[in-house]
């Protein structure tokens, strides 16, 4: 078990009980999680199971439909030897606040070690974290935060560029409704990345200029010399008239195609948190092209979630003061 020992040696002290958002992390903690995730990649690739979380219980509590994130957390937990239970909760018929608190009490009684939560309402995960006795990981709350997505994006970038510091990253699309954008902006700003936001004004939230280095409403300007082009999913219902008149106009002005990508650096990475709308925010040829690291992002997701789980509920974590 020399490999296992080596990994445990890299496990940093992580002085948080929960991972609710990137906002609570400092550069050292982010770097520590990324280093730890890096070490998990060979484990993940070898499809080995470690025993570091043996005997621990992980509940995936998804109030919002998700296939990839839930699967990613499930695989991460299982590769570390945890007992993983998936719970999908329909929120439609019951008043959400009441359901959430009731659910928390119920789950708490089952004595889990960690609950991974996704909820459509911003702040819901934090509320639930106050009502349970175990660790909580935010797997996305409304348009607020999605910290493991930001970490896996950072890991993907770092592996290709060798660093984060000093890079230029353009985040493009539906910024206003995106938790991915918010978590990424916080992480990248913290890591001294030059962050750009590219979107039509109807999809820019108020005050965004304070949350990034530069705001562009013309995508062509926003991509010039970018090291990374990060596309966001456009919810179809938003492209039907109120904020965006049509899919064809959106793709014409804000979709990533070869012409626009050519303005970025020749070695620029193309990223997308998925699931993609091909032909809406991204040209299929670009999504599958040489610069795309979209599938690699999914792979890094498992490594990052393994690292986060260990940091929160691994034995080293419990030993932490």
């Amino acid at each position, binding site marked *: 078990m020399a490999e296992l020992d080596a990994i445990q040696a890299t496990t940093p002290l992580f002085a948080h009980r929960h991972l609710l958002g990137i906002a609570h992390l400092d550069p050292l903690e982010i770097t520590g999680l990324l280093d730890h995730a890096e070490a998990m990649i060979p484990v993940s690739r070898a499809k080995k199971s470690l025993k570091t979380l043996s005997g621990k219980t992980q509940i995936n509590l998804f109030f919002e439909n998700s296939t990839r994130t839930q699967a990613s957390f499930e695989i991460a937990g299982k590769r570390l030897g945890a007992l993983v239970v998936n719970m999908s909760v329909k929120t439609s018929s019951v008043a959400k606040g009441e359901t959430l608190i009731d659910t928390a009490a119920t789950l708490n009684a089952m004595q889990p070690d960690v609950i991974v939560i996704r909820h459509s309402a911003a702040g819901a995960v934090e509320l639930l974290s106050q009502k349970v006795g175990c660790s909580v990981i935010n797997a996305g709350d409304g348009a607020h935060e999605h910290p493991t997505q930001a970490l896996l994006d950072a890991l993907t970038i770092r592996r290709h560029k060798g660093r984060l510091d000093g890079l230029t990253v353009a985040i493009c699309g539906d910024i206003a409704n995106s938790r991915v954008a918010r978590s990424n902006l916080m992480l990248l700003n913290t890591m001294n990345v030059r962050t750009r936001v590219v979107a*039509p*004004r*109807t999809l820019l939230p108020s005050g965004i200029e304070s949350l990034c280095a530069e705001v562009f*409403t013309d995508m062509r300007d926003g991509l010039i010399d970018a090291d990374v082009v990060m596309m966001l999913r456009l919810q179809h219902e938003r492209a*039907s*008239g*109120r*904020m*965006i*008149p*049509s899919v*064809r*106009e959106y793709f*014409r*002005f804000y979709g990533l195609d070869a012409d626009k990508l050519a303005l970025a650096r020749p070695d620029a990475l193309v990223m997308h948190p998925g699931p993609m709308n091909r032909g809406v925010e991204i040209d299929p040829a670009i999504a599958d092209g040489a610069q795309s690291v979209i599938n690699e992002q999914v792979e890094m997701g498992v490594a990052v979630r393994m690292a986060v789980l260990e940091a929160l509920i691994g034995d080293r974590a419990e030993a932490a003061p």
Partner: protein
Amino acid sequence: MTRALIIENARILDPASRRDMNGAVLCDDGRILDVVAGAAPGAPANVTRVDAGGLILAPGLIDMRVFTGEPGFEYRETLMSASRAAAAGGVTSFVMMPDANPVIDDAALVDFVLRRARDTANVNVLPSAALTKGLAGTDITEFGLLKEAGAICLTDGRRTVADTAVLRAAFTYAANFGMPVVHHVADAALVADGVMNEGLFATGLGLKGIPREAETIPLERDLQLAALTGVRYHAAQISCAASVEIVRRHKKSNAMISCGVSINSLTLNENDVGAYKTFFKLNPPLRSETDRQAVVAALGAGVIDVIHSDHDPQDSEVKRQPFAEAANGAIGLETMLAAALRLHHADEIGLMDLLGAMTCRPARILGLSAGRIAKGAPADLILVDPDYPWVVSEAAIRSRARNTAFEGARFSGKVMATFVGGVEVFRHTGE
């Protein structure tokens, strides 16, 4: 091929530079090459020379609000007939409203209008595009694609968007593409079935009134949203003193807003309705004389930026009806300048300001290089005799529709010749 033209012996009036001098203008290839004081220089024999005979030479007028009937209502007006009327009225460019059938809310339709105009019109037709799909006030149109197709601005024409959230999104999205929004301000619920200005006069006629608040409430709303979104906003037409005060207040803090006034609101009032004359049934309605004087003063003070004709051809079928049942609107392309000159002759407003409101000011709002007499500008020019006496007669109207509010009016001042891109498109002949 050369299209060289010299117009000499003219009183050159250029509102953009506020220049008023005797001289000559040299044009070639559709543009103004030079403007010289005094006598024109010699030129090759093949250059067309026009002796202005001391008449006023002004930039061609730019009319920001013209309804035609093409496509869909060709019996009212075509681009060809509208352009002939425009040329006779000294209008060298007009913004065509999107209220057609189909509504001009798609890039392909903008392209259609531009092609039809190229093939049939002899003045510049600037298509506007609908702000919302089908003018329905619910979903915004494709501003980016419409702009690329050649739409000059966005407007819902006669309609006012009622939903404030839609309007906010529309303004925000228009600012995104740098497209000016021109918005008619009338609260449909307050207008309801009103047919003329609310007040004693309407009551006496037994007609339902339209309160001024039907205009001031959406105007105030629009201007607050304009400040929020940073859109280039133009209130299509205001008609009363209270609206003037609202615009004056907002202009102190927002340089991106402007407003227009119809020539009808400047020169007519509710008393002209007289015995239920439907050619004076307009939208916005003719207001009181106090309101008319307020909008005239606001024009002189620069609070109101633009005069337009609100040219709205309607056939007799819909106009020769009981007042309450008749359609709104009057034609105005041929009479706008002559009617405006009434204000000049009555010393209500100076000639330079009057012309500026129909030339350089709309050009600035729309981002056009026309509307001025300067090197490099399009050679869109008019010769005006400011004192020429004439009477409007229905028989001589060039529009297909006859619904003029100035039938039988006696005017002093007329366009004697009109040039578009250095080519003469109209010349007044005979008495």
